């Protein structure tokens, strides 16, 4: 009798649990541009967070713990807030939830609340590239010279790329060791996203025909973390949520190199995650930002961060002279979706070329430090372009 009652109770409980699962991914909700992110300590104790010790039974998804939702719901109730989405970040030990922007008075009250670590805007970011209108050759001179000089295709080097989806069925990527994960949810159309395909192609492509694209670091282990997507106008977009999740996964990977072909305003959450990567020795390549000063952007100027600036055959006088900026070809022939090829250009196309060059240098001399890699790259580019880099 007791057993039947328990069985019935558990059955009802499970059915109830299944029926209340959200059927719509809230991350796809529009209108997050004016949202605010509240960051609190992850309320879970270590045992529960890691699923260790007796008592926790079967594994469960890190982000699906009801305790997280209870804590965020309690704060939301106290201030009459509407939660748009929420997510924990393992490597920071925090739980974040995005809310619809309340009044200034309520925001000030939340900011004083001891349960809250910090408040920040929910930022949006953009990818920086477009189809090229120039007639760039398929094999850039700078790159073929570099390849000849450093005959090391990036073996044992791990590169994390945070970008849009990639066409993993592309013939020139079939033999690469590419691994992909999606943190952008159902946004965009992963089958039609060219940006990530072009960026990964420049690093990791292995030509399937004599006309194929020959990536600069075809032997590198590339992890494409889809933290961005392309909108209806084919513009690449990312936000605090998708980039934070992708960066959190990147910290777990502890890559040698991180490729960020994107730009946007300063974001504390992303800066903290990037700090973890930099502390682990990762070399970060990010696209140059035409709009913002290095101190006001993500990623901010710091040791281990290199900004990629795309240049034509020669370096124009208007190119920035900054110790953190390196030049690379602005135009390139790379992969496109549906097994195609395209000429692409922009600072974000210069970024993966520098990242792959760094991978070749790291393999060429494994004892080279991060600073040495940057300096060697800088010296080589200085010789090639005849340009003076700021020190």
């Amino acid at each position, binding site marked *: 009798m007791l057993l039947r009652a328990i069985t019935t109770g558990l059955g009802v409980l499970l059915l109830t649990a299944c029926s209340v699962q959200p059927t719509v991914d809230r991350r796809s909700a529009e209108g997050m541009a004016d949202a605010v992110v509240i960051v609190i300590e992850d309320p879970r104790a270590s045992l529960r967070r890691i*699923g260790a010790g007796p008592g926790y039974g079967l594994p469960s998804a890190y982000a699906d713990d009801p305790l997280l939702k209870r804590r965020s719901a309690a704060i939301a109730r106290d201030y009459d807030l509407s939660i748009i989405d929420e997510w924990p970040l393992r490597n920071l030990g925090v739980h974040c939830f995005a809310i619809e922007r309340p009044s200034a008075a309520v925001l000030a009250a939340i900011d004083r609340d001891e349960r809250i670590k910090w408040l920040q805007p929910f930022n949006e970011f953009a990818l920086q590239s477009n189809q090229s209108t120039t007639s760039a050759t398929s094999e850039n001179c700078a790159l073929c010279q570099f390849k000849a000089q450093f005959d090391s295709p990036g073996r044992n080097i791990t590169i994390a790329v945070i970008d849009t989806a990639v066409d993993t069925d592309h013939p020139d990527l079939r033999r690469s060791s590419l691994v992909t994960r999606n943190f952008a949810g159902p946004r965009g159309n992963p089958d039609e996203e060219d940006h990530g395909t072009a960026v990964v192609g420049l690093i990791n492509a292995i030509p399937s025909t004599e006309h194929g694209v020959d990536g600069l670091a075809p032997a590198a282990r590339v992890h494409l973390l889809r933290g961005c997507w392309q909108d209806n106008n084919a513009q690449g977009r990312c936000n605090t949520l998708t980039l934070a999740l992708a960066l959190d996964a990147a910290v777990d990977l502890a890559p040698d190199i991180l490729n960020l072909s994107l730009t946007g305003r300063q974001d504390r959450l992303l800066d903290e995650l990037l700090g973890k990567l930099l502390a682990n020795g990762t070399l970060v390549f990010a696209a140059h930002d035409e709009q913002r000063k290095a101190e006001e952007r993500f990623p901010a100027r710091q040791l281990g961060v290199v900004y990629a600036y795309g240049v034509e055959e020669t370096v124009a006088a208007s190119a920035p002279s900054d110790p953190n900026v390196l030049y690379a070809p602005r135009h390139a022939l790379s992969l496109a979706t549906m097994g195609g090829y395209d000429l692409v250009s922009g600072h974000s196309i210069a970024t993966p070329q520098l990242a792959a060059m760094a991978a070749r240098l790291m393999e060429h001399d494994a004892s080279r430090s991060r600073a040495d890699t940057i300096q060697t790259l800088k010296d080589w580019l200085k010789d090639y372009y005849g340009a003076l880099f700021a020190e």
Partner: protein
Amino acid sequence: MIFANIDHPEPANARLRALTAALTAILINPASASAGDIGVVLQSASDTIYHGTPETRGDPSFAASVTWQPHKRFFAGTSGRLSPVSSERQRHSSIDVFVGTAWSIGDDWLSTLSVQRREFPGAPKAWQYTEYKVELTRFDGWRASLDFALDYYAHNTRAAIVELEKTTFWSDHWYWQVQAGAAELSATRLDDYHYARISSGYTAGRVTAELSYGWNSEDGTIIFGPGQLRSQDTVLSIAYRLF
């Protein structure tokens, strides 16, 4: 043969009941709830496999566990299990009480040292024993543990059991898990054994469902007293995280 029948009177363990009652009182006390992290998990399984051997003679069971971690260095909890009896009642119900201490090792590892008392109320003979466990867990799903018992299942034998497990999420919701273990028993009349298990599971929200296939070096045939029990190779488990 893993465990032969040894007759013991069923213990009326008043201390265990008192400890369980005290722990339950602490756990359900709202004041203590705010002082620590309490997790409650309900689980049902088509068979109960513990250290590679079946405990419920292949019968399904329902279980509930409560874990309380009031401080990063300390945890305690209890779990109870009930199973319908299709043949002779043996370990069809159990109550476990555990306390332990936890240390983080760097950013990625957590180690725990715990002691667990296991009781099997209603069994016609004694099975109860105390288990000491050292466990090392890595955030990416690696787990290694060493269990030691002075009188394993009240069978006048010491036991040392090592287990290695890897859980990998291959999407937000799906995971697979492999586990391998070996048990060494001091009594010469009992055979040492080893075991392995491979599982795949789906987790969404509070619910986790898992299907596993297990293997035991005893070929699944475990002798429990008067009869033999063939362990189910495939086990379906469903867990619900209540709190």
